[in-house]
């Protein structure tokens, strides 16, 4: 068997079962009790790798033992065999020989145990060395690459099947090892797979600070054999980390724990049975592909593991990509988190002070600017030292030395010099972003920089510049973005999610006519790019827009522009977070002045004239005024307190709180003006008036206020009601809710132990054992925290804890608690909707009689609500024979392309397809006979009868609502895509262009009986004529729910209903219109004689079908439609229950077959 055959077999085996690696090598060597001579003398005692040369028989025996125990994969005994580590024994020059020997010995054993149906493989073990670059330093990145290269060359020569970089504690070391592998393959060695295994300490991070999430993001560009975790803890202690890793990575996942935690004498005591039982849980959860043992494990552990994993299915890695960046911390770039703020001040062009510090070579102080930006809200830091009169690369290297010690946020490397970028990336643990590439010199820079991006796993800023220069108008911006996108995702192998398109911001008031209206063009380009390039993100340098305007007014223009960019869909914004003003806090007149300049509004025949007048007005105003701040001092005290929270400012907060304390108890201040202000912050956020970073600043102010007031709250005396352990769950840093609960409980006689934020199960378990609380309180703000609470409850339960659990937080609901958390935990679980109900529940939980009553009350409700997934009823015999009366289409029409198309519909064009019977009859309750006259009869005729008069009034109201919709209250959008399709039995397979494997397979039900129809019958069978099918989704629901709620709040119930009904029918009408266009694209456009009534009666060729309706009633397959169409870009998401949100959304499968007809696979009703 050649090495490539073995690798192919390994990949195949990984897809069908969980593979078992061997156990600890050091433990096994120690167990042999070898004398110093065996190692080559006392000076080499402890150098396990040297045994490969001195006692190969001992290593052979250990390998054989593991193979006999059932291991599929052996690790070579080369963990510390870099020249760097061997040098400590004076063996650096024998490194290659040792590695080669290690590989040959393992290979020999693996081959000996390999049978035709059970291959065994060899992993070349590569340890972290003794120098984590980010922690100890002591050698350069390049030197470390050279050390690894020697080791990898030896292992490769000796015949390993893959390299395993294990016990990794610093991602910079991993990157050095990866670069060494790349260099080895470039030198002509046959490429082999690579696996990486990190070591996450009990504190939840690797030694160099990254969490498992950050590690996964940093390596997501690689096609790893697997990404795993080893060492540090026993299997129980890895559950949290493994759960996160499994949820995050697109790689396969490995897990090699220690045999528990060592005792005082360093012995690992976990029994093989317990070890295997704990690990097999991970298998049952579907989290792992490779398992094995680390410190303290031996043959017995591996035998138990092999037995426990027999028959367990491996993890199926997810395939979707996400946009994320990382430094030590991770920043996700999603619809919920945007705009991500990039601090622009650590840039010689962006800050005079920074430039001067760099020039003075005061790098420590320069790095402080980066840190200050993070403190003020920046989530990514842009770094640039590019100055004509200095050595950019040397400056940046010296700056990075300091920055990586001070800043945990991801870095944006801002340089046009590829060498500088390459150097900078070796300093970054995480996934950085390179600013930028463009087509100014054709593809040269693409070639240069993408090579680096792929090697280091960096994202790219892509500028709207090509050979013709900078793009100013939206069409050119989009055209360049499209071209760049196609090149970068095609020829250069970047993923769409790693691309951040910069449509460029120009000074809006520079006087240069070329830039008149450029702010609008940039905004619209953001919108267009987001629509046209699925998965890609956008970025803008905001401050450029106000260049040339009076300094006093620039922050206003920048902030207003940022607000509009975010509304247009901007993902990353380069700003000075200190100088950004909150949109709702900007004085209305100043906002108008800024918008007039940005959008060239006002009087004047030409855009130039309008802009000139707008700029003159702006300049006149800001020459004499500073931006208006609300005069806080003049406001009533309660309002002042609220403004502190809403505007995120702590200036004067303490004074105002102290004044309020003179008349009001602290707790009432918290529950009164402060909580009301937080509600307002939430409302402004929902109305897109605040961005997430501003919400977090408000939360900070709230936290500071609570913390100040806490001092004024009298703690209850010695009489204790009980002890409560409080924690914000893992992955969440929001603790306002928890802190409130702490204050309230503490003031009501409870002893509270606050474990703080980001508390994982292990830490919680430890604290429970130490403090023996009466109640455990878990809190969290984020949606993912709700799921983390369920996972934490499960871990507590598994550890045998039964202390009552009190859970609360913004993302929780009572039903989630009942259905998910309470079921994961044997003890009592109660949901606290707010801090005061938490107090009430805590009191009940610590009094035995009341606790019993509470338990009974909760059990009664949950019993009546309980729904454990019942298995589906036994399926009736399914037949898959194609209905004979549906002939395959001999010459199926071909669509013009298989690309994904995103459309913005014109409301008036869509409303021409609105079915009045459905709108007026079905939703608004007008009798059918009257509806028929609504668009044909004269008003006078209709007004003769009461129902007619009612219909007239409604028509008037609908027309008024349509006017509001045209003015921006409604937006109709759609996405569609043709797919190559074939059918087999009851299934339809859809293919990506050029792919031979199906992208998805849709399974449909068939009517019973020999002639029963199935949707698959309308697609050519396998081997038949090439065929196609179209998927589409229309939506008109964006913002409709909120508007309906607002009308309802105002008591305008008719309008509330009208907008919802109109949105539903608009989505339906858009479906009708789009279906008509699709027929034309297929080449059989509707004839002129086809009336709208004919369309409503489906008197045309082909049909569209939606899941949930009688021909395809099962809703689960909506997920596949979503996967293919990605309508999230239109703001449409799929709920867990397969409902589309917003509601006014229609998805459909469109078949062109002339015999396609509506039918039902449901049993007919018995009436």
């Amino acid at each position: 068997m050649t090495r490539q055959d073995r690798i192919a077999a390994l990949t195949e085996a990984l897809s069908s079962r969980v593979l078992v690696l061997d156990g600890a090598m050091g433990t096994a060597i120690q167990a042999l009790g070898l004398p110093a001579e065996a190692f080559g003398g006392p000076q080499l005692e402890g150098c396990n790798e040297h045994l490969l040369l001195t006692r190969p028989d001992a290593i052979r025996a250990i390998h054989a033992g593991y193979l006999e125990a059932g291991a599929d994969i052996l690790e070579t005994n080369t963990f510390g065999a870099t020249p760097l580590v061997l040098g400590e024994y004076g063996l650096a020059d024998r490194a290659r020989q040792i590695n080669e020997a290690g590989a040959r010995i393992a290979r020999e054993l693996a081959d000996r145990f390999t049978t035709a149906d059970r291959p065994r493989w060899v992993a070349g073990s590569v340890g972290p060395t003794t120098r984590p670059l980010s922690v100890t330093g002591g050698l350069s990145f390049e030197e470390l690459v050279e050390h690894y290269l020697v080791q990898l060359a030896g292992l490769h020569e000796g015949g390993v099947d893959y390299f395993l970089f294990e016990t990794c504690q610093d991602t910079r070391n991993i990157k050095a090892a990866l670069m060494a592998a790349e260099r080895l393959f470039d030198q002509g060695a046959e490429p082999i797979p690579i696996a990486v295994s990190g070591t996450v300490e009990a504190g939840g991070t690797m030694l160099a600070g990254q969490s498992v999430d950050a590690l996964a993001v940093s390596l997501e560009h690689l096609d790893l054999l697997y990404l795993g975790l080893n060492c540090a803890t026993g299997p129980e202690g890895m559950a949290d980390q493994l759960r996160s890793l499994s949820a995050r990575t697109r790689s396969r996942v490995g897990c090699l724990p220690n045999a528990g935690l060592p005792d005082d004498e360093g012995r690992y005591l976990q029994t093989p049975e317990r070890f295997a039982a704990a690990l097999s849980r991970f298998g049952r959860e579907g989290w792992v592909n490779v398992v094995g043992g680390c410190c303290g494990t031996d043959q017995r552990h591996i035998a138990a593991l092999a037995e426990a994993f027999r028959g367990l299915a491996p993890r199926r890695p997810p395939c979707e990509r996400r946009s994320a960046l990382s430094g030590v911390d991770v920043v996700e770039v999603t619809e919920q988190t945007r705009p991500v703020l990039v601090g622009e001040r650590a840039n010689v062009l962006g800050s005079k002070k920074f430039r001067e510090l760099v020039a003075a070579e005061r790098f420590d102080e320069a790095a402080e600017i980066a840190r200050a930006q993070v403190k003020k809200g920046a989530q990514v830091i842009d770094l640039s030292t590019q100055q004509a009169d200095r050595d950019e690369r040397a400056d940046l290297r010296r700056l990075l030395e300091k920055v990586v010690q001070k800043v945990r946020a991801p870095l944006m490397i801002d340089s046009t010099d590829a060498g500088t970028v390459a150097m900078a990336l070796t300093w970054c643990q995480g996934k950085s972003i390179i600013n930028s590439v463009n087509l100014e010199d054709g593809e040269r820079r693409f070639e240069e920089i993408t090579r680096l991006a792929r090697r280091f796993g960096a994202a790219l800023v892509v500028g709207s510049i090509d050979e013709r220069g900078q793009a100013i108008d939206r069409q050119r911006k989009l055209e360049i973005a499209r071209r760049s996108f196609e090149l970068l995702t095609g020829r250069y192998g970047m993923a769409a999610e790693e691309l951040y398109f910069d449509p460029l911001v120009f000074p809006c008031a520079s006087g240069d006519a070329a830039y008149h209206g450029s702010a609008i063009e940039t905004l619209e380009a953001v919108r267009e790019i987001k629509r046209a390039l699925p998965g890609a993100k956008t970025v803008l340098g905001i401050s450029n827009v106000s260049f040339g305007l009076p300094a006093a007014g620039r922050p206003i223009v920048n902030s207003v522009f940022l607000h509009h960019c975010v509304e247009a869909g901007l993902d990353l914004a380069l700003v000075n977070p200190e100088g950004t003003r909150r949109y709702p806090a900007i004085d209305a007149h100043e906002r108008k002045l800024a918008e007039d300049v940005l959008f060239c509004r006002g009087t004047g025949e030409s855009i130039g004239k309008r802009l000139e007048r707008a700029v003159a007005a702006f300049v006149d105003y800001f020459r004499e005024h500073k931006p208006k701040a609300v005069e806080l001092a003049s406001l009533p005290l309660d309002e002042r307190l609220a403004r502190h929270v809403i505007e995120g400012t702590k200036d004067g907060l303490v004074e105002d709180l102290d004044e309020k304390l003179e008349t009001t108890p602290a707790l009432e201040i918290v529950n009164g003006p402060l909580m009301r202000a937080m509600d307002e912050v939430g409302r402004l956020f929902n109305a897109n008036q605040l961005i997430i970073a501003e919400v977090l600043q408000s939360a900070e102010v709230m936290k500071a206020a609570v913390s100040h007031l806490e001092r004024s709250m009298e703690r209850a005396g010695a009489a204790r009601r009980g002890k409560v352990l409080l924690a914000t769950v893992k992955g969440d840093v929001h603790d306002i809710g928890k802190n409130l609960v702490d204050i309230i409980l503490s003031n009501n006689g409870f002893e509270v132990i606050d474990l703080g934020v980001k508390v994982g199960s292990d830490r919680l378990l430890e604290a429970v054992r130490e403090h023996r609380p009466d109640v455990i309180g878990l809190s969290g703000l984020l949606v993912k925290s709700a799921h983390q609470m369920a996972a934490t409850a499960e871990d507590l339960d598994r550890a045998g804890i039964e202390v009552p659990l009190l859970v609360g937080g913004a993302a929780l609901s009572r039903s989630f608690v009942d259905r998910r958390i309470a079921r994961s935990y044997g003890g009592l679980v109660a949901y606290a909707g707010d801090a005061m109900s938490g107090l009430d529940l805590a009191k009940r939980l610590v009094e035995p009689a009341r606790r019993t009553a509470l338990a009974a009350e909760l059990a009664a409700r949950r019993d009546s609500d309980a729904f454990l997934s019942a298995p589906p009823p036994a399926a009736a015999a399914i037949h898959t024979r194609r209905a004979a009366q549906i002939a395959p289409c001999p010459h199926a029409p071909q669509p013009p392309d298989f690309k994904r198309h995103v459309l913005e519909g014109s409301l008036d064009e869509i409303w021409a397809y609105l079915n009045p019977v459905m709108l007026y009859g079905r939703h608004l309750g007008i009798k059918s006979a009257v509806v028929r006259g609504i668009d044909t009869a004269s008003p006078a005729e209709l007004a003769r009868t009461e129902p007619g008069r009612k219909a007239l009034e409604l028509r008037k109201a609908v027309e008024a609502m349509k006017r509001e919709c045209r003015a921006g209250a409604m937006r109709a959008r759609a996405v569609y895509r043709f797919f190559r399709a074939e059918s087999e039995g009851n299934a339809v397979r859809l293919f990506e262009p050029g792919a031979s494997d199906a992208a998805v397979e849709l399974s449909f039900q068939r009517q019973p009986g020999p002639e029963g129809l199935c949707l698959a019958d309308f697609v050519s069978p396998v081997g038949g004529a090439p065929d196609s099918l179209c998927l589409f989704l229309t939506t008109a629901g964006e913002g409709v729910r909120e508007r309906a709620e607002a009308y309802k709040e105002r008591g305008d119930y008719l309008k509330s209903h009208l907008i919802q009904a109109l949105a539903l029918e608009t989505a339906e009408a858009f479906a009708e219109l789009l279906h008509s266009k699709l027929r034309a694209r297929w080449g059989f456009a509707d004839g002129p004689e086809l009336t709208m009534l004919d369309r409503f009666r489906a008197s045309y060729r082909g049909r569209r079908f939606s899941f949930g309706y009688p021909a395809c009633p099962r809703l689960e397959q909506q997920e596949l439609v979503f996967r293919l169409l990605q309508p999230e870009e239109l703001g449409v998401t799929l709920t867990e229950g397969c409902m589309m949100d917003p509601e006014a959304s229609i998805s459909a499968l469109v078949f062109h077959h002339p015999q396609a007809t509506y039918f039902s696979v449901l049993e007919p009703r018995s009436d």
Partner: protein
Amino acid sequence: MSEAPAPAAPLAPLPTTGIGSLPHTQLELALQLALRVDIPYLPQLPMKDPAELMLPQALEGLPGLRFDREGAVTVQLAEWERRAADFEDELEQALATGTVAAFEPSAGFACAWRPFLWEVESRRLPVAKVQHAGPSTTRWALELDDGRPASALPRLGQQLYRLALARTIAMTRALLDRGATPLVFLDEPALGLLAPDEDTSHRRMFEELRLLIAALRGEGAIVGVHCCWSADWSSVLELGADLLSFDTALSLPALAAQAQALERFEDRGGSLALGLVPTDGREADLEALAARVVATLRGAGKAGERLLERALLTPACGLALRSVAQCERVFDSLKGVQRLFRERLARD
């Protein structure tokens, strides 16, 4: 019950129907599911809007009504007192003149109501089912904002009864107007908590319910009572309803033990709506379930046998808190149970 209205069109034996709530947030998809059963029913969608939870939906229009996301209902006393007289005038006017259309559910509290009526008419459905929380349950669940129960204000209790009457009559007439025989179920879980002999207020609630049932029957509706808790079944069977809907796993043995009351109920033409398919997570062995229900009813004598033959089949309760997939499985199981029942009755 001799004057009980007969269904307008014959239904095949052992028809299926639903209880009411569904987990959907998209109206159209919920309607599609509710139209699959033999007797289509008005879906309530509380996951889309808590106003569609049983109690808020039934109390729409009550002055001072407030409700939370869990469906707990309270009355703001000050507001109620300010508007109570006007509300009573509206009710009086509507009930005295028979112009109750204004009391049909609005789209804000029952988004499916108008589309459902449209479907009833356009599909020419012979029978259509709606459900509404009964006055005993609204009176039991409603609290005043000062923490007292609704029963503390007799005037409010009277309004609750009259509101239920006006709304269910309005719904009955709307369905009749669309050509369907209305099947109106009064959802009365609180019956399980009331013993008619316990005190006068309980007796009054039973009396009110009896009157409401009689009034709806007089309008031409087939009237059912749904109670998914344990109850004093002999009293419930005497309420005069055409149908009694209950969770068979929970209540069938207790109900069957009321042999005389059951016989009188059957003799008056009453039928049972058997809540068969568990919605509480119990894994259903449908064969065993069918066998057990058949045996229990047959054990109740000839009345039981006849009740079995003309029973309706339903899930055990509403489905709002389940997932859509679970909900679909429940309805699949219901079809399966229907097949088993029909086979068993044909065989025996």
